[in-house]
């Protein structure tokens, strides 16, 4: 009886399959090492988080109560109401030359949330400004949270606005909007001049997540779904495509004067924080740095390089300084409450329940400030920026069924000009990336069911 055997012609593929299976298994095990290592860990982890809304700006005579919401549950405890004992101290001083004064935080509960609070003494609130940071501890553990993260090196500041220019908007009349002149547009799709929507047929649409405009009027639109920037130069008929090595999810973007640009991603790898990536004008990867904190909402250009608004500290932190990357630790140590402008001045904004406070701050202190009140609820401040001797604020007015952006051109006497724009947010973009100023024009990123576009508004002589 003849034993079945492989002839030479069939042996090679069979051996190939066998070898392939072995090699492939090894490859999958190696590449999927994280998957193997990702066996679920059923251990219930500790929760210890603090949120704080800093009173960055205040009016004369206002009392200041600092409050910190604390969420704390011990490791291994599944019942979420069990909580843990927390305590804290806030350290307050008038300025850098003074010693910090400790104030013990008192524990209360507001709306079912443990809250640590302290009232700032009136001698401090009467000063032009004071600064503070808090240390909050979970009792019986070594767990400690600094708020803001830079602690004594980068405390929060609260600036007094002695005489802000008052602006009253009254009740907003919805429906009277200026759409602006569409200077560029790109249809949704996968074509060379199209902009992509992120994957997900039933989720809310996300696409064209950020844009910026250079001084010469060139518009750059971040097409994150296609991992590229579409760039419209005023002389060109269609957009130039600049491929980028980004992760393809919602991101913010800011242009530097040398044509390079920074992209702030919104999703990080496990155990890491989101990256700021730096590209040259052709899209070549230059470098990347992790942000100090997990929640970052904007990247903008400061006097020495890019700065990122990071949460939960609510501070603008430098991520590069004259071309050198700044480590996460040093980002925290250099956090500032105001957005540093290229001019060296800073803009500080605070939306409160009853008003919006905004200040232009120099090394000498508050230079100019405005208080905006409205009979209609105001949501986010999309933009606050000086424009020549004037100051521009773009804020969203909203009701339960309507929403528009209100543009305010302000000077020391009040409103120079105001108009409203539609929100045009068919697709979701990065939260504070809707507006830019360049060459005395205001630019707005919008979208509808057909595609994304940028509209422009001439702000006139400043």
């Amino acid at each position, binding site marked *: 009886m003849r034993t079945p055997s492989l002839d030479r012609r069939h042996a090679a593929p069979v051996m190939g399959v066998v070898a392939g299976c072995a090699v492939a298994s090894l490859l999958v095990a190696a590449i999927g090492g994280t998957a193997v290592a990702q066996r679920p860990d059923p251990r219930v982890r500790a929760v210890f988080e603090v949120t704080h809304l800093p009173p960055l700006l205040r009016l004369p005579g206002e009392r200041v109560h600092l409050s910190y919401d604390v969420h704390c549950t011990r490791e291994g405890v599944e019942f979420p109401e069990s909580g843990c004992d927390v305590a804290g101290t806030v350290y307050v001083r008038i300025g850098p030359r003074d010693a910090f004064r400790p104030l013990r935080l008192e524990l209360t509960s507001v709306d079912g949330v443990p809250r640590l609070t302290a009232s700032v003494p009136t001698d401090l609130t009467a000063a032009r400004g004071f600064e503070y940071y808090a240390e909050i501890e979970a009792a019986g553990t070594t767990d400690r949270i600094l708020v803001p993260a830079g602690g004594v090196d980068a405390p929060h500041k609260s600036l007094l606005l002695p005489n802000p220019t008052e602006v009253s908007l009254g009740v907003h009349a919805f429906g009277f909007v200026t759409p602006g002149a569409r200077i560029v547009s790109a249809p949704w799709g996968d074509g060379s001049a199209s902009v992509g929507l992120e994957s997900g047929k039933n989720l809310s649409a996300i696409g064209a997540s950020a844009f910026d405009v250079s001084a010469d009027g060139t518009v750059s639109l971040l097409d994150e779904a296609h991992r590229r920037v579409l760039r419209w130069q005023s002389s060109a008929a269609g957009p130039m495509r600049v491929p980028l090595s980004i992760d393809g999810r919602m991101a913010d973007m800011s242009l530097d004067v040398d044509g390079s640009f920074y992209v702030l991603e*919104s999703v990080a790898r496990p155990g890491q924080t989101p990256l700021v990536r730096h590209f040259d004008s052709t899209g070549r990867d230059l470098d990347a740095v992790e942000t100090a904190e997990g929640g970052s909402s904007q990247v903008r250009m400061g006097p020495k390089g890019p700065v990122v608004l990071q949460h939960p500290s609510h501070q603008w932190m430098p991520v590069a300084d004259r071309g050198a990357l700044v480590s996460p630790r040093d980002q925290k140590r250099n956090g500032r409450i105001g957005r540093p402008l290229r001019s060296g001045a800073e803009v500080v904004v605070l939306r409160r329940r009853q008003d919006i406070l905004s200040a232009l701050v120099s090394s000498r202190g508050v230079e100019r400030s405005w208080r905006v009140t409205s009979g209609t*609820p105001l949501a986010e401040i999309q933009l606050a920026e000086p424009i020549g001797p004037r100051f521009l604020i773009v804020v969203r007015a909203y009701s339960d069924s309507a929403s528009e952006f209100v543009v305010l051109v302000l000077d020391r006497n009040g409103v120079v000009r105001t108009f409203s724009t539609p929100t045009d947010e068919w697709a979701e973009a990065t939260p504070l990336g809707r507006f830019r100023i360049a060459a005395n024009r205001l630019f707005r990123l919008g979208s509808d069911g057909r595609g994304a576009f940028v509209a422009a508004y001439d702000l006139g002589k400043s």
Partner: protein
Amino acid sequence: MISTRAFVTGLVVAISLVAASSAAAYHTRFVADNCNNAAPTPTSYITRDGSATVALRARYEGYQWAGGCWNDNDRDDSPNDPHEDAATGGAGGDCSGFTFKVWRESLSTSDAGFQQWGMLRNVHGPYTSAAFKAGTGAPNTTVSKAALIKMDALASDGHIGLIYATNPDGTDQIIEAKGEDYGTNIWTRTYRGSSSYTGVRRTGWSS
């Protein structure tokens, strides 16, 4: 020469087959291997802080379309799942399943009571984001957006997220199961001012 070509062809085919089968299996194992159908624990004392804790334990977990099971290991155990496929069986909830568990609601829409669900209990609940937006169900009601506070929600026809904190610029920090590519985390959002979104509140909290 022929043998070498055949060997290489076989190798490529085998690698493809093994990789494909491995990937397919990987994307369907989390729920099957780890999740359960345990009954919830009815409870009468429920605070917004407790719900924030439930939500924070789901932070950094994945996203699973129509899902609701996670393990608090701060990573997506089933990354790169196909989008919006309920059969992928991955780690995490979707936006409405996440909200249902964080608000500790009942499978019965007529029951406003509180039910404590285990993290590994695979449950989505009866509400879509559009149903939450409409205030559907005994525990849920719509609220003016200007009046929303911590652990209230903002819901649209396609998404829902929970308010975790407010930022100085008037944006909100929203804790949400955002999508397969995003997972579950806290992000700065402008949902409050968007006319697509409605304010929704879970009622019956202990103070």
